[in-house]
């Protein structure tokens, strides 16, 4: 059961041994139970401590007689589905989990990770107290010493190298409140070098989708897929990554007799339940989608009415699509024309159809373009803005959607306001902080308004010559809160980068790869934080629903709440008073409800304004009232609301907007969660075009209308396209009279001498939104979605070969973008691709290496590999290799192999010989770390806090390549060679 998939090898010895040494004896079941798990091991590790200072994670079921059992409703902390967890506690100890039947999202269900979350709050292998690396040895320190030393060092670096030399790497595991605080913290520190896991998971989705129709998120929901008649899952394996979502997909498939098409290089666990499986070469998503649309347009299956009314630039896209004949698609991607025709027909004619994608699509140098092509396919077939249709983007971590929304990002403040002056002024107003004070925190106004360095390239910013990094100095410090070190490509270089920086601070529940990967000897701190089961707040699931959760237990051992840690650091750095001006702090712990209220007060752009803590708590208490498919409450105190008030939930909480279950849905009134495509890209566009006039070709300036034509949401008083609302627009329509005196006063205060320019997004009264919606209009305007996303590097998606491609013959026709500078750094992908072709790298490393998820582990896997119930199920890092490739290399199933990467790195893993991958393709899970190029690094973790399972990370082998729009890495398509070890 080591590589679970085969059940063929058993290497139980070493691991059972490791386990036994921790639990202080052999693994006899009865004594094991008597000691209630491995808690004794954990205690042995902290044995020297005075017991009073350590909250023991001891005891388990059954409930002891006499003491009351308390039930707490929490939310699973793993993936973005957002399953409700019912925890039973007694005397402050988590003793059991029960199914949360009332949740419309999971209806009691869990996957392996959700069914084992209780272990997280017992935490045998948790980081138990603050630690510091002194000459290569971990030493326990107190919180006071840690905060003081870290704060002093940060101040020193700030003085010497400027605020941009400190990188604030946050987390998709934060609550919304935590993510918001973290972004706010970076602002008060004075840098845009702040990021989180969305960079490496769906940054390209957010960029691609938002640039198409307005907002960067899943348009529908997991539940709504029950309405779909055709589902295409492309570059995603939700059966392992989002298992509970399969409940909705499988039941939908059964009830609707729906088509289920999996398009993937691997025949995944998801593909096993598909009605059709399409195998593609990694990195050829655009050819496959254009190939589909080629059939759609050739056969007239497109939705002409939809395109005419609601889409801009489909003609321009068509010019690119026409190049992708079935022959060319097969030559590039390997997909036969007939199969693609069948799929295209189902997608275009058996509607509603939804397109579901994950990281197989996003993690490429063409990630944004891939997403744009997907959107174009949905637009061409009229599958957006309907029940059962839409872009169902399955986000990764439990709050990656929320952390993205709250601007834990190098290029925007919370809720997509951006970082231009207007955005800073908006948030300064919300924060009641003087704008000029804020500006003085930065190196300059220019750096305040320049995007920071993406997390994928932090080590380049530490190691490149100073003159190649466009900021006052190289990176000198990494402040990592809840982010793995093994999820970023090019790990050997990350290890060197870690050795180069002066300060490394890791705030996490476990030590993570950051603690073990490099040869650092000093200047490293590990600070234990609690899991979200030890905190309270809200998190946004993939479907944009916000769910409020309460702490199951207090932070265990010496862990502290995220909010408290940020407060302590802000206090030490001298800006706590400013930063927490409107947030109550009790005993160093900022109050989560107050943080959400502040988000509400400033969150008008994205509709985070209506979800007050009171409303969210009401939903959690009345989950049973919400319908499984429509997510709407049929009854009870939240009657009429959609579950979790999925954003956008417009206006102030008092307006009682129900939230938006399906985006851009014109069949509903805006006050019922309806909407249109956002008029975000102007009202018109002037283009030079060659037109025929009196039989002569002349070049003329033609004006294109970017607003919807003849399409509007139900009940709209303006029955055509319209621009975004400002106070001036309200005045023009004569609707300004509907504003209350208080609303008008706020608008005038914000607008100063020019109140007409105050838009719906910066009107802190919510009045413009309220009045527009009262007239059935949506304040963000009624525009067309863009098939031509002018302004992006590839306005129409163009196929570009991966930097490391085995198809060197295709590079001249489909090269990557030219070298350029972006995000303060050079991008030399073009040179590397060119050199790869010249050096025939594809012959020396002929196997494509791609990566993905296992159900048992999450992200970098640090936390889940430290959970004994999960770790037991996957004990070795492995590589899937096709039988033909294996036999050509004399590799046996289950044997150790060396995987050699094209830039000199190597990894030792077990071979899993399987037809799951096609010939010439190998696949590795990305959750492992702790072995580095064949070396076991277990000794480098603090004693007793090493994960049970260690293994080689696939990112030791992944290579250079970055998306031009977001800096996304390219771990889904690189090259390798494999040999028997």
């Amino acid at each position, binding site marked *: 059961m080591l590589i679970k*998939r*085969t*059940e063929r090898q058993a290497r*139980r010895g070493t*691991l*059972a041994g490791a*386990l036994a040494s921790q639990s202080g004896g052999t*693994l*006899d*079941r*009865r004594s*094991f*139970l*008597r000691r*209630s*798990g491995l808690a004794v091991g954990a205690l042995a590790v902290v044995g020297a401590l005075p017991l009073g200072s350590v909250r023991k994670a001891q005891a388990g*079921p*059954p409930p002891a007689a006499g003491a009351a059992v308390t039930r707490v409703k929490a939310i699973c902390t793993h993936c973005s589905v957002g399953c409700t967890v019912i925890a039973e506690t007694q005397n402050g100890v988590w003793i*059991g*989990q*029960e*199914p949360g039947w009332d949740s419309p999202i999971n209806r*009691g*269900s*869990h*996957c*392996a*990770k*959700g*069914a*084992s979350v209780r*272990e997280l709050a017992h935490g045998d292998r948790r980081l138990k107290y603050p630690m510091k690396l002194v000459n290569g040895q971990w030493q326990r320190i107190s919180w006071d010493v840690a905060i003081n030393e870290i704060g002093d060092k940060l101040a020193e670096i700030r003085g010497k190298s400027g605020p941009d030399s400190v990188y604030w790497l946050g987390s998709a595991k934060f609550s919304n409140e935590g993510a918001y605080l973290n972004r706010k913290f970076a602002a008060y520190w004075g840098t845009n070098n702040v990021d989180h896991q969305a960079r490496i998971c769906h940054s390209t989705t957010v960029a691609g989708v938002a640039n198409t129709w307005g907002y960067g998120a899943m348009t529908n929901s997991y539940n709504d897929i029950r309405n779909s008649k055709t589902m295409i899952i492309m570059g995603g394996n939700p*059966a*392992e990554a989002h*298992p*509970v979502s*399969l*409940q909705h997909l*499988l*039941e939908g*498939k*059964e*009830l609707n*007799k729906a088509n289920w098409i999996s398009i993937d290089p691997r*025949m995944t*666990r998801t593909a*096993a*339940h598909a009605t059709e*499986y399409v195998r593609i070469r990694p990195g050829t998503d655009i050819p496959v989608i254009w190939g589909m649309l080629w059939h759609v347009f050739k056969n007239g299956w497109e939705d002409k009415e939809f395109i005419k009314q609601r889409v801009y630039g489909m003609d321009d896209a068509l010019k690119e699509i026409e190049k992708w004949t079935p022959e060319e698609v097969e030559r590039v991607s390997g997909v036969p024309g007939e199969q693609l025709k069948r799929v295209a027909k189902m997608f275009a004619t058996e509607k509603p159809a939804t397109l579901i994608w994950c990281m197989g699509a996003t993690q490429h140098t063409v990630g944004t373009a891939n997403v744009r092509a997907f959107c174009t396919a949905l637009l061409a077939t009229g599958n957006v803005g309907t029940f059962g249709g839409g872009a169902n983007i399955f986000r990764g971590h439990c709050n990656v959607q929320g952390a993205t929304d709250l601007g834990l990002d190098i290029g925007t403040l919370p809720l997509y306001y951006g970082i231009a002056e207007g955005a800073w002024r908006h948030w300064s107003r919300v924060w009641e902080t003087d704008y000029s004070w804020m500006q003085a925190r930065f190196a300059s106004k220019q750096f305040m308004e320049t995007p920071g360095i993406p997390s994928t390239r932090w080590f380049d910013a530490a190691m490149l010559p100073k003159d190649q990094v466009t900021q006052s100095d190289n990176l000198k410090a990494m402040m990592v809160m809840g982010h793995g070190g093994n999820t970023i490509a090019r790990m050997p270089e990350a290890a060197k980068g870690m050795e180069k920086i002066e300060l490394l601070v890791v705030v996490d529940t476990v030590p993570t790869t950051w603690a073990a990967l490099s040869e650092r000897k000093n200047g490293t701190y590990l600070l234990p934080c609690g899991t979200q089961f030890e905190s309270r707040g809200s998190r946004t699931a993939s479907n944009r629903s916000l769910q409020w959760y309460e702490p199951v237990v207090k932070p265990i051992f010496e862990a502290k709440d995220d909010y408290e840690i940020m407060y302590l650091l802000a206090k030490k750095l001298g800006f706590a008073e400013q930063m927490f001006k409107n947030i109550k702090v009790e005993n160093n712990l900022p109050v989560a409800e107050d943080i959400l209220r502040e988000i509400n007060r400033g969150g008008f752009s994205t509709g985070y304004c209506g979800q007050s803590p009171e409303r969210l708590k009401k939903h959690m208490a009345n989950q049973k009232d919400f319908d499984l498919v429509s997510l709407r409450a049929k009854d009870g105190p939240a009657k009429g609301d959609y579950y979790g008030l999925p954003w956008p939930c417009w206006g102030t909480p008092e307006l009682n907007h129900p939230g938006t279950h399906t985006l851009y849905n014109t069949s509903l009134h805006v006050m019922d969660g309806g909407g249109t495509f956002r008029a975000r890209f102007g009202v018109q566009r002037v283009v030079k075009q060659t037109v025929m006039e009196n039989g002569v070709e002349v070049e003329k300036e033609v004006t294109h209308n970017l607003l919807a034509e003849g399409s509007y949401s139900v009940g709209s008083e303006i029955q055509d396209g319209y621009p975004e609302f400002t106070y001036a627009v309200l005045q023009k329509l004569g609707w300004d009279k509907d504003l209350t005196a208080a609303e008008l006063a706020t608008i005038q205060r914000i607008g100063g001498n020019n109140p007409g320019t105050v838009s719906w997004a910066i009107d802190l009264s919510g009045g413009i939104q309220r009045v527009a919606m009262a007239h059935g209009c949506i304040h963000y305007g009624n525009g067309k979605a863009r098939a031509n996303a002018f302004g992006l590097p590839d306005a129409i998606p163009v196929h570009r070969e991966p930097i490391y491609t085995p198809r060197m013959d295709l590079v001249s026709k489909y090269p990557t973008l030219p070298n350029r500078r972006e995000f303060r750094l050079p991008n030399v992908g073009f040179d590397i691709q060119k050199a790869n072709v010249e050096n025939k790298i594809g012959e020396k490393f002929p196997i494509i290496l791609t990566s993905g998820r296992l*159900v*048992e582990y999450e992200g970098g896997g640090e936390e889940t590999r430290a959970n*004994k*119930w*999960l770790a*037991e*199920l996957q004990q070795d890092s492995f590589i899937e290799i096709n039988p033909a490739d294996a036999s050509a290399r004399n590799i046996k199933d289950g044997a150790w192999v060396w995987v050699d990467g094209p830039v000199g790195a190597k990894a030792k893993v077990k071979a899993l010989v*399987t*037809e*799951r*991958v096609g010939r010439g393709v190998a696949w590795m899970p990305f959750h492992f770390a702790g072995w580095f190029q064949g070396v076991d690094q277990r000794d480098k973790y603090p004693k007793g806090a090493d994960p049970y399972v260690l293994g080689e990370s696939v990112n030791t082998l992944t290579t250079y390549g970055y998306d031009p729009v977001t800096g996304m890495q390219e771990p889904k398509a690189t090259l390798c060679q494999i040999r028997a070890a």
Partner: protein
Amino acid sequence: MARMKFLCDADRCIECNACVTACKNEHEVPWGINRRRVVTINDGKPGERSISMACMHCTDAPCAAVCPTNAFYTTADAVVLHSKDICIGCGYCFYACPFGAPQYPKVGNFGSRGKMDKCTYCAGGPEGDSTKAEFDKYGTNRLAQGKLPLCAEMCSTKSLLAGDGDIIAQIYKERVVKRGYGSGAWGWKTAYKETIAS
């Protein structure tokens, strides 16, 4: 009286292993013992299917028939349980079981494997219901609290069903009729000497 059974709908099982960790969590089952596991056939090929497996609590259980110490007994709900005080760890039941359910804490020959452990249908053992002694040996007794086995209750896709045999057979039958396919109630013929007509 209810006749408790398990049923795994292989057309729904996605091998997410929730049943496995739910069991580990509920009963604090140690590393190396798997009361429940998921087996996948045609792995990585078209037709790949997974099935969650544990003790099926058979009618006329073969484990009980071969036990030299009569450690097994069947409850009024038709759940097959055993006494760890009587078990001598001989391993006969492991050879008799068509589902590979019995597990042993140690590897070894006759008598040295330790007390046998297996799925209790979340119904504990011969000790008093929900006592510490019962928990230490057999885990939580959910049935005594009016709850069904946690593995089925937490199944991600409602593939694994637990409950009265007639009721879960009815649920499965309706599913098969609605969707038009079903590979059959896996293991029912062996365990319960019956199949579900669809």
